[in-house]
Structures are given as structure tokens and as C-alpha cells.
């Protein structure tokens, strides 16, 4: 099936549907303020720091997504940037999936778009705060179409959202690109090499800082069990993955999802969509996308059904750790399900539309929302915008006014928080993005009884000191710490204050306490050389400029029918 021009106005209904779905899903999250949910932390007036570019020795999971947000926040309020990014995920997902359906009818394409933008994958990853991954997920249908056309410029444009997302988004997209390229047309070896170019160049910002970080690549095998797919429906872990759910975290399952009746109907919808895809999808990318979906499903299931081999593989080469949180690789399967649903609706509708056909089509568009109502209204209020408390604002002002160099250490010594001012909802500690200095936190991750050790070399070095019971002020100052920021109160709070005896208390409120240490030593952190990072960013920007010789409008409008 060949590509031909599709007027941009044909995409307006899908974009509008995506926008409506986004408004419905985000609900109270669109109010003034910031949504903090698990890995999603936005802060007011973010600044470009060494951390933004992955130069502090930590794993660059936030590269380049943090740089993208910081750049946008130079011209727009950061809270607005967050809302626009989250809405863009729904608009892009609905538009891209709708454009991939080989049908001239509107309702089948809208059904595919709605299914792709509103399903358990989106819900669970959104609650987990994986907006960067979802950016790549949203554009995946365009990536599939571009890979099938074997056009490097078009592929770079289609990969832009994934490139912004960084590591996870690019890994999932790479799976789809390589599978579709390998299965589409002759000269596979050469085509694969040409497809690998854009993937490699757009991955440079996180690839270079990740691979060359002095501490090397961590490969903790304990995380395999912690992040393996789990059952969130009555159909087991594999059945849940097939239904596009199954993310590792029980807490991010939307309310009401997985009940027997609705799960059974959703299973029928998915099986029907897969059957329709197999029967009727005859596009140039159909086989490659099916291959990507099958491979992705295998990656997603690995932690659940082959934990031992996966641990052995990670022991052999830490790079296999990308398969630990495998559920994200179900993204190509979501494309298949969405396109299959669109094709099924297309066949259900009569050649000449009538009221009954239109009703069926509209029902198909509404079905994903009906079957997953728990995503609506900010997933039942779990995505809610809040403001940073006054204690935080005062702490930032105090730090900003200090000309003396030195880092900020955050206590309690843990990565995640359940801030009372955020309704007790879990999130990453917000301090690293809130302050414009190097912020040292423990990045050890606790899931149930499993603790995945810290990856930041600085945190690992300070760990014994902080876990001891001795005084902290002088030893921390010798380690380059200028401030200690306590942003959660627990039973150890009073003892912590005693251990900071000698430090100057600048802010002391119910939500945060800030101490300043005197006599801070200057500590240089090892890391990837700055000039190398400049070169990688130059290469990425040059590739994007080169790709813009084909306009974005062309990317959207030229889609296979």
C-alpha cells in the first residue's frame, strides 16, 4: 500500500478527540500548580545545571527530557509546560494512531486513536509519572510508518518525541524501527544500518553520559523481581500484558480496573482487534509491526516468566538491565491493538453509512473510556496539581542568595517521598529539580522489602556517614555539602537535628528545614567531560535541522492508506 497525501484537516478530528481525552484524563491535574506522581516531578523556574545534562555521575534517565522542560520553561511558566506536555501525549497518541489505520472512514480511525490514547498502558505509565516514555509511545505509530518508508529524514522527525523522552522512549522506539525496517522490503542489512543512524544520533545525549559515566553501568539483579510485570486482571501476568496493563506497581492500577466483567469484555475487544489486524492489515509495515509487537511482548514478559535467565544475562552484561521494567515494551502491541480495532470497526460499518453504522462507530470510539473509567478525572483525583509550600520557596531564596559554592544534601536519606502537601501521594524527592545547585540524595530504591542500591557514586560514598549515628555538620562540609535540606518529618527528625548541631538553621517550617554548614570544602565530581556533551548535543541538533528539510506537516500528512 503506497503513501499518499492526506490533508492536514483530516487529522483535526483525531487531534480534537485526543485533546478531549487528555482533558478528561488529567482533570484536576490541569488546575494551577504542579502534578507530582512517582517519577514525574516538575518544579517552578527550573535551571540548566550539570544534572540537566547528566554530568553529575548519576544515570542519565532524565536526559534530555529535563533539558527540554527547562528550555520550554524559559519562555512559559513551568506548570503550564507540564500541562502542555501531558496534553500533548494524548493529542499525539490519538492523531498518530488514527493516521496509521488504512481506512478512509473517520470513525474507524477515531476508534483506533481513542484506543491508543486511553488504555491500561497509558493509565499505569501516566500514574507512574513516565511522561517521557509516553511521549515516545505517543509518536510510535508515526515511527512505524516512517521506518517502513526507509526515509531517514522522516524517521528523525517521527522520533523527535521519543528523543525528547530519552532512554526508555528511544529503546521502545528502536525495537519498532528495527523490526519494521527488517520486515519491510529488500536490502535489509543496508536498510537496518540506515535506520540505526537516526536512532544512534538521537540517543547520543543519554548514551554518551550513560556509557562513559565513571561508575559504569549498574546491573543490580534484585530489581528484576521488583520491576517484573504483574497480574492486574484475572488473566495472570501474561494475560494482563496482552491487555496492555501489567506494570509492576500495584499502586498505579486505575481504580476499578481488572474486575472480571470489564476485564473479560476488554479481553474480547483486544482479541477481536488482534484477529482483525491479522485478517485485514496488509500495509507495508503490517508484518514488521507484528514482529515488533511479538518481540516487545517477549521483552515485557521476560521478568515475569524468565527471571532467572534475565538475571544471568544482566550478570553477564549490565546493559540487559533495560529489560527489568519490561512492561514498557508492550507499546508496539498497543499500536497493533489500536490499528486492529480501527480495521474491525471499518469492516463493521456499511459501505454506505447510516444511523446505525454511525452509532456503532461512536460506540467503538467511546468503548475504551467505558472499559477504563478509572483513568478519568486525573485517575480519580490521583493526578492533582499542588503548589510548593512556602518553606520550600524560602529555602530556595536563601540558597540562591548565597555566593558560596557547595552542594545540597537532602534528608531523610531516601529517594521517594509521600509529601503531606501533595496529599500523601508518592513521588520522587522534588529537591533535585527544585534547587539550581547539585543536590545529593540517596537514589537507592525500595520496592516492598527489596532495596535496589544507590547508583550515584556521591550518594554511595556518603551513605556510611549518614547511616551512622555520629555528628554530620563537619563531615558533610568536608564532603562539599553546603546545605542540608530536610523535607520530610519522621520519628528520626529530632535525632537528625541533634546530629546537625553547629549548623545554622535558615528555614524551619512544618514542610521543610534548611541548615547551612560552614567551612564547606570544594569537591570536584568525576564525570563525562563537558566538551564531549557539547559535541553530542551539536550532533543531535544538526541531525534535527537536517531532517527539517522535510516539514512536520509532510510527516503528518503522508501516511500509508
Amino acid at each position: 500500500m503506497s503513501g499518499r497525501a492526506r490533508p492536514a484537516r483530516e487529522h483535526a478530528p483525531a487531534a480534537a478527540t485526543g485533546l478531549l481525552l487528555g482533558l478528561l484524563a488529567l482533570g484536576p491535574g490541569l488546575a494551577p500548580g504542579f502534578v507530582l506522581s512517582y517519577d514525574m516531578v516538575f518544579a517552578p523556574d527550573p535551571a540548566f545545571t550539570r544534572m540537566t545534562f547528566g554530568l553529575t555521575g548519576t544515570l542519565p534517565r532524565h536526559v534530555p527530557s529535563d533539558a527540554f522542560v527547562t528550555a520550554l520553561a524559559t519562555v512559559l511558566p513551568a506548570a503550564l509546560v507540564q500541562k502542555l506536555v501531558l496534553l500533548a501525549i494524548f493529542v499525539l497518541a490519538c492523531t498518530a494512531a488514527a493516521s496509521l489505520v488504512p481506512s478512509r472512514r473517520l470513525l474507524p480511525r477515531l476508534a483506533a486513536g481513542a484506543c491508543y490514547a486511553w488504555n491500561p498502558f497509558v493509565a499505569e505509565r501516566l500514574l507512574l509519572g513516565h511522561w517521557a516514555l509516553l511521549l515516545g509511545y505517543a509518536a510510535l505509530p508515526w515511527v512505524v510508518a516512517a521506518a517502513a518508508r526507509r526515509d531517514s529524514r522522516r524517521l528523525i522527525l517521527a522520533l523527535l518525541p521519543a528523543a525528547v523522552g530519552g532512554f526508555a522512549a528511544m529503546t521502545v522506539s528502536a525495537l519498532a524501527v528495527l523490526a519494521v525496517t527488517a520486515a519491510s522490503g529488500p536490502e535489509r542489512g543496508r536498510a537496518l544500518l540506515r535506520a540505526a543512524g537516526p536512532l544512534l544520533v538521537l540517543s547520543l545525549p543519554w548514551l554518551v553520559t550513560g556509557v562513559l559515566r565513571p561508575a559504569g553501568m549498574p546491573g543490580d539483579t534484585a530489581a528484576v523481581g521488583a520491576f517484573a510485570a504483574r497480574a492486574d486482571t484475572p488473566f495472570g501476568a501474561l494475560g494482563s500484558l496482552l491487555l496492555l496493563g501489567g506494570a509492576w506497581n500495584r499502586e498505579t492500577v486505575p481504580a476499578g480496573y481488572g474486575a472480571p466483567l470489564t476485564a473479560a469484555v476488554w479481553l474480547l475487544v483486544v482479541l477481536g482487534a488482534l484477529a482483525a489486524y491479522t485478517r485485514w492489515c496488509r500495509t507495508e509495515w503490517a508484518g514488521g509491526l507484528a514482529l515488533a509487537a511479538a518481540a516487545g511482548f517477549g521483552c515485557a514478559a521476560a521478568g515475569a516468566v524468565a527471571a532467572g535467565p534475565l538475571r544471568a544475562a544482566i550478570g553477564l552484561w549490565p546493559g540487559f538491565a533495560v529489560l527489568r521494567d519490561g512492561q514498557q515494551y508492550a507499546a508496539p502491541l498497543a499500536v497493533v491493538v489500536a490499528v486492529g480495532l480501527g480495521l474491525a470497526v471499518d469492516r463493521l460499518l456499511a459501505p454506505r453509512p447510516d444511523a446505525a453504522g454511525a452509532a456503532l462507530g461512536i460506540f467503538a470510539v467511546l468503548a475504551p473510556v467505558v472499559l477504563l473509567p478509572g483513568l478519568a478525572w486525573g485517575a480519580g483525583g490521583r493526578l492533582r496539581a499542588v503548589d510548593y509550600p512556602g518553606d520550600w520557596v524560602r529555602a530556595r531564596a536563601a540558597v540562591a542568595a548565597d555566593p558560596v559554592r557547595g552542594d545540597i544534601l537532602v534528608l531523610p536519606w531516601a529517594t521517594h517521598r509521600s509529601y503531606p502537601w501533595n496529599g500523601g501521594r508518592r513521588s520522587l524527592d522534588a529537591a533535585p529539580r527544585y534547587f539550581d545547585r547539585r543536590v545529593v540524595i540517596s537514589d537507592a530504591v525500595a520496592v516492598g522489602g527489596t532495596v535496589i542500591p544507590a547508583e550515584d557514586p556521591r550518594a554511595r560514598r556518603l551513605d556510611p556517614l549518614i547511616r551512622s549515628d555520629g555528628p554530620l555538620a563537619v563531615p558533610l562540609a568536608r564532603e562539599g555539602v553546603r546545605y542540608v535540606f530536610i523535607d520530610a518529618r519522621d520519628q528520626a527528625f529530632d535525632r537528625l537535628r541533634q546530629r546537625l548541631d553547629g549548623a545554622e538553621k535558615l528555614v524551619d517550617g512544618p514542610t521543610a528545614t534548611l541548615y547551612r554548614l560552614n567551612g564547606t570544602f570544594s569537591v570536584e565530581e568525576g564525570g563525562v567531560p563537558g566538551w564531549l556533551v557539547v559535541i553530542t548535543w551539536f550532533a543531535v541538533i544538526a541531525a534535527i535541522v537536517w531532517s527539517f528539510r522535510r516539514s512536520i506537516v509532510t510527516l503528518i500528512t503522508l501516511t500509508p492508506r
Partner: protein
Amino acid sequence: MRIAVAALTGILLAVLLSVGVVQLSAASQEDPVIKPLYNYGTR
């Protein structure tokens, strides 16, 4: 025939929506889970 299918589909979706809303309200009334303060989540 198509009208009958459309009507049946509409009824089915309405039933599912009702079930979903009931499940949602039931889930919101469950006792809150006491979560470890500094954990990433629970399997």
C-alpha cells in the same frame, strides 16, 4: 439487523459503564493502604 446490533452494543456499553462506575465508587471506599513512607511502590 445493523440497527439491532447498534442497539445491543449501546445497551452493553451502558451496562459496562454502570458496572465501571459502581466499581470505581467501591474502590474509592476501600480502607486506605498504609504505605511505607519512602518506598517507590508496592508489587
